[in-house]
């Protein structure tokens, strides 16, 4: 492991953030972590201090609550971190746009598509959609298509259940 990556993992561990290692050859990123919304800002601050940049912020509509996905990476070594944070009962999550200014637009886009409120965002107005389409929330799933968060977690390829050919047909 790159010394800077080792430092990142141990520093985060010192702050009680445990990164789970992933197989890069399978997943395309190195670490994943799930956090509660109240620890998000502290985590983002740590990553900025370690010179990790923000790749993207995106939403994922799952049961029981929408998850906001953050990906961070490094400019000088292969090191990608995926962070998942579930929104609270009011569909809200704290903003990180004062820590990573690049998150500003990503958060506005996620608000447009999923209706997630980013608490403390300096400019919470639609970015992509028009003002009158604010209720559209185009990336929300219908009830029939909605899946449990646990059902979308990575399963190692050799442990994949055999899918039924007929059920797969539609």
């Amino acid at each position, binding site marked *: 492991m790159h010394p800077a990556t080792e430092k990142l993992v141990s520093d985060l561990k010192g702050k009680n953030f445990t990164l789970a290692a992933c197989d890069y*050859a*399978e*997943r*395309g*990123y190195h670490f994943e972590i799930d956090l509660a919304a109240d620890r998000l800002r502290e985590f983002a601050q740590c990553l*900025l201090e370690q*010179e990790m*940049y*923000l*790749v*993207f912020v*995106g939403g*994922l*509509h799952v049961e029981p609550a929408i998850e906001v*996905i953050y*990906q961070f*990476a490094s*400019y*000088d*070594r*292969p090191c*990608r971190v*995926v962070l998942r944070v579930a929104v609270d009962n009011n569909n809200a999550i704290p903003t990180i746009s004062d820590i*990573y*200014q*690049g998150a*500003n*637009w*990503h958060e506005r886009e996620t608000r447009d*598509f999923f209706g997630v409120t980013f608490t403390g965002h300096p400019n919470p107005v*639609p*970015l*992509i*959609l*028009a003002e009158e389409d604010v209720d559209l929330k*185009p*990336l929300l799933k219908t009830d029939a298509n909605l*899946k449990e968060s646990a*059902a*979308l*977690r*990575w*399963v*190692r*390829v050799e442990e*994949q259940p055999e*899918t039924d050919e007929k059920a*797969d047909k539609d």
Partner: protein
Amino acid sequence: METAQLNLEPATDIQHDNRYYLNMGPQHPSTHGVLRVLLEMDGEYILDPQPVLGYGHRMHEKMAEHKNWMAFMPNTGRMDYAAALPYNHGFVSLFERLCGIEVPERAEYIRVITSELNRLVSHHLWLGAFLLDLGAFTPILYTFIDREKVLDILEDITGSRLTYCYFRVGGVCKDIDDKFVTRTREFIKYQRERFDVYNKLVTGNIIFLKRVEGVGVISKDMALRYGVTGPVARGSGINYDVRKNEPYSVYPRFDFEIPLGENGDSLDRYMVRLNEMEQSLRIIEQALDQLPAGPFLGKVPKKLKMPVGDSSFAVEAARGELTYYMVSGGGDIPYRLKIRVPSYSNLSILPELGQGILLSDLVTAMGSLDLVIPEIDR
């Protein structure tokens, strides 16, 4: 007839200074697409430039949730229209890795050659358009002569000139022939001579230098906070290129350099892209020398079965890092596909970059970012 109610009270909240708003776009030649920038101005100086997006948004991410990979392929060519092949590349590579599909070596070489040719034409387009923004009309005529030559080569192989849909899961859809190899080799020789023309015409030109030197400076810290990638980040001296940092395809087999700037101004970004064109030629040359024989399309099952879970694939597009992040619930249609495009993060820097500079310098700075709006409005 109803009369409109008029508010005849004198307005008290207007501050009588020199501030005014100016709309640049959505149809403005130097925004390169349907982008509007709302400028708060004080005389010729910009106080606050705010890009307004979404005029051409097509919701590719929603479409991805309703189609299998084959049906979504044409969409990947319609985001960054100037360099569509790296978008093809990232998308098929993601599926190949997930479904464990072997890609023949020849196919990977063809992918690299065509992707680099595509990067080259993208930089041709940028070079011409950037200088056009600065008021120099002639260079675009020169770069388009060169661009057309590559487009002709690519058209023969891929069937299209702009929105390519050439890669397939498991390879590419058509093999390259001797004619392609000969024409590409001829082009490499020709393009190397053309760099002298560019340099004589533009690089040493005092008017050009005065317009770009020290304009739109992006510091390393600023790039980090916004997640800037690609030639824009490299212009600020950040040695980051996905082709080197997280090598994919057969890129590790080629010897090429990552050009870097020092000051992070528009001139550095110009130099980085110009040098990158030469590096692309080097990659293509080596790939043509090493080009193995064999099939161009591997064996692929009719219906792909993706494992459950999320995965990510990053490639170096012409404008920076492109990441496909997919969450799959099994089957062959993604549950969610997030597409991280480079121009999005690169443009989000504009409100900070444009503060307090002249309007004419904003045009320079925006041109040097090399924006493709359909990629942002994806």
